[in-house]
């Protein structure tokens, strides 16, 4: 609202994921691969292995062309992109950590210089001096990782910074060390995985086997250690956030599962390469890299998912509103915008006053300034798809937006705006609805649950829906008439008698099963299991 919102038709979030996803896979290689270069050179020179040295020289070129060009530029690309999509967060992070970024720049500059001199120095420098450049490269590249890791972990777990606003409190936050250990392992593993790519095209089978075995020393132990550091990492994330990856939030849970599976597959493939080191084919090496890419990006998605709805946890929401009032917030907090109204607070809207004739148009503008940093009308995280899936009408949409912050473990920020603006937003979103449920037909309770309840409730014994709903069907059906009367934060849904009856019947059917200890399945997926 403070800044204009860039309207990316296919979704700004997707663009961000694309740039960042490509960058992390190269940037971690840039760090681990640096150590790989110097240690491999040391090993090759110690054992007078001219063939290995020859390969390493070619591998250096591949390394520099990948990391210095693509890695560095996509890193700048992340910066360009977050400035376009989350300018408020970028501005915050720049002002809080400008000295961190500046320090990182010093390391980056040295890193690039050392990488180029190491590459050009292969034929020119005597071995000790050449390795000296390699070590400078690795140390400065690792130092860059240390700085960036501190700032990225700050975004998820700002720790005491929230109270004292001190640079080092935020930097040495609760997840800094476990994340650094975790990422260091990724760096080492990727050094081995990328080495497989250039090794696979070697004609000398014996040389190829030597490289594959050496690369496995980097990949296998690092991958095996990752779960240990992941466990440490997860333990330092507040449990209520981590719940998003344990079933409360479908996307986060899916990516957590995917990260585990793909990590396992990567390890398996690395072991397979080791089993037949002479026969390693380029296609196989690329598959290993692709699976590792999937594993790594899944992890990054999990990190981003559990952080939601914040960009900086407990400080700034993904839609650039501050979580609470503070000096200099510019009026851009949920409460202040709710008091003043979105259309009065935002700088970048045409419509300032609501009238009966401009409801949909105003709703579209509200959507743009408040929702479009993550959602699109009908593409990535598309509202159209969500609405069709759940068959909500305008009234239901309105009720549900009122309780956004309760959905999927609080993955969404609360709606900020006046009641009339909420009406306008609902009116606009209703234009995206194309599904029209059959009225008056038989109502399946499970469907009602999936459409109207599952985004906040989960099928487990201690969930209010299952533990507190009256056992007597008639009492329950009556109670569901007035949801806010039952519990004040409930949305004021107007369920028909048929829907209420169906829902109660279904809840009573699955309740005994649900009365078991908490089920780990994702909320949306669980009913299909319980219902059968």
């Amino acid at each position, binding site marked *: 609202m*403070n800044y204009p919102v860039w309207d990316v038709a296919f979704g700004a979030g997707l663009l961000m994921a694309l740039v960042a996803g490509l960058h992390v896979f190269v940037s971690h290689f840039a760090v681990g691969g640096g150590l790989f270069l110097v240690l491999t050179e040391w090993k090759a020179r110690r054992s007078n292995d001219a063939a290995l040295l020859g390969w390493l020289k070619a591998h250096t070129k591949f390394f520099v062309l990948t990391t210095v060009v693509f890695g560095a530029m996509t890193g700048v690309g992340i910066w360009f992109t977050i400035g*376009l999509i989350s*300018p*408020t967060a970028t501005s915050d992070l720049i002002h809080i950590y*400008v000295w961190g970024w*500046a*320090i990182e720049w010093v390391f980056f500059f040295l890193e690039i210089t050392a990488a180029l001199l190491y590459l050009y120095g292969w034929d020119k420098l005597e071995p000790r001096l050449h390795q000296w450049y390699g070590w400078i490269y690795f140390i400065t590249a690792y130092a860059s990782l240390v700085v960036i890791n501190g700032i990225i972990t700050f975004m998820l777990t700002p720790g005491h910074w929230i109270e004292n606003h001190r640079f080092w409190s935020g930097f040495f936050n609760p997840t800094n060390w476990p994340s650094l250990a975790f990422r260091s392992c990724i760096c080492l593993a990727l050094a081995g995985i990328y080495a497989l790519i250039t090794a696979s095209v070697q004609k000398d089978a014996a040389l190829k086997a030597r490289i594959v075995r050496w690369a496995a020393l980097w990949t296998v132990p690092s991958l095996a250690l990752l779960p240990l550091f992941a466990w440490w990492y997860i333990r330092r994330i507040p449990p209520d956030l981590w719940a998003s990856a344990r079933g409360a939030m479908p996307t986060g849970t899916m990516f957590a599962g995917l990260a585990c599976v793909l990590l396992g597959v990567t390890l398996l493939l690395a072991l397979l390469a080791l089993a037949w080191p002479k026969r390693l084919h380029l296609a196989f090496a690329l598959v290993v890299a692709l699976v590792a890419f999937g594993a790594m990006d899944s992890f990054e998605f999990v990190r981003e998912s559990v952080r939601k709805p914040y960009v900086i946890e407990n400080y700034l929401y993904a839609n650039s509103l501050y979580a609470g009032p503070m000096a200099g917030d510019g009026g851009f907090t949920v409460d202040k915008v709710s008091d003043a109204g979105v259309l009065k607070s935002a700088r970048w809207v045409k419509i300032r006053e609501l009238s009966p004739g401009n409801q949909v148009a105003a709703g579209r503008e509200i959507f743009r300034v408040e929702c479009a940093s993550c959602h699109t009308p009908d593409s990535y995280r598309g509202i159209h798809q969500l609405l069709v899936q759940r068959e909500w009408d305008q009234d239901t949409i309105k009720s549900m937006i009122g309780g956004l912050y309760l959905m999927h473990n609080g993955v969404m920020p609360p709606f900020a705006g006046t009641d009339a603006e909420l009406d306008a937003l609902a009116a606009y979103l209703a234009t995206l609805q194309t599904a029209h449920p059959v009225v008056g037909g038989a109502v399946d309770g499970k469907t009602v649950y999936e459409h109207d309840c599952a985004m906040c409730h989960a099928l487990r014994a201690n969930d209010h829906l299952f533990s507190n709903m009256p056992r007597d069907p008639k009492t329950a059906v009556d109670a569901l008439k007035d949801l806010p009367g039952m519990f004040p934060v409930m949305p004021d849904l107007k369920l028909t008698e048929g829907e209420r009856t169906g829902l109660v019947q279904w809840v009573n059917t699955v309740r005994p099963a649900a009365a078991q200890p908490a089920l780990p399945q994702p909320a949306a997926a669980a009913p299909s299991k319980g219902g059968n």
Partner: protein
Amino acid sequence: MIDPGIVPSLDPNPLPAPYWVFKLLLVVTFTLHMMAMNLMLGGAALALLARWRKSNAYGNRIFLDVAKKVPSLMAATISLGIAPLLFVQVLYGQYFYTSSILVAWPWFLVIVLVIAAYYGFYFVAYRGEQRSLAAGRAMLFSTTLVLVVGFIYTNNMTLGLVPARWAQKYLNGASGWHLNLTEPTLFPRYLHFMTSAIAVGGLLLVLIAWANWKRDRQYALALFRFGGKAFLYANMAQIVIGMGFLVSLPREERMLFMGDNPLGAALLGIGMVGTFAIIFLMFAALRNGNIRLAGLGVTGITAVVIATMCVMRDILRDAYLKPYLNAQPFAVQTQWSPLLLFLGLFVAGVVLWAVMLWRYGFFTKAGETGK
């Protein structure tokens, strides 16, 4: 109409050092970035030109020699560009983010274009000899991309200076395709920067000539003449283009450099005198075959001229933004320990950087090696 309300509010976090610290870092690092960019782009453009000029017997050799330097100059341009991009966001984030969002797609494409150009330059550096025809095309392709990137930068940077135009542009379409083509200073400004690149690219050739002076005098002379002439022509053109840029500025801003702002006027004076001086000196150096005069004297004065231009650019920016800048002053709360750590690492980094170049042989064999 000036409406300070259109400019986004500052975020709640204070500046972690006094304003002038960031201003100094911004101007200094931007100047270094400009020098690297000029060497890279000018070098690439002149390499192409050398190859096309059939009359020059050394055309292809010059092309290949200069092309080998371009990827490293590109790396320097990017590395030195990161710092001013950081410091401009510290001091001018509200303007910079907003204009970037208005021109979001071209701005985003900068990344794609630079990556493509960069790989093109590497292709020429590594395969230029074996694949001559493809190398020429790749060089043309990459140089064109860099010219496009420069044009996008000029659009974004000028758009950031005119908040009065933002709302109308944004409300006409939020999909991020608003170049600033109606801006009267756009083309003179862009040409001013690009011509400067040609001039400095000429100096790069002179420096390469100097490095080859003892080893291969014939070739060095050819490089010297070609680079020196490019430098002369570009600077002569620059006098006209620079005047055009000055004239295209709004009256109030123009008058800053004509006496309203003594520092601005003095800098313009130094810049003009410096430009005439480098033209004269290069002319003399070419006539007398005095490579030292060109390599040392002209380069030194040119660096001073570039620095004055960068300070003038900063004065101009603050003049444009004057009505808005005072509307919301910065709070300052210095973060001493990270600041001192940065300064310490910065000094150590510069020393280590110099040692790296020195041990590689950059300084020791000047005049003998081609590296």
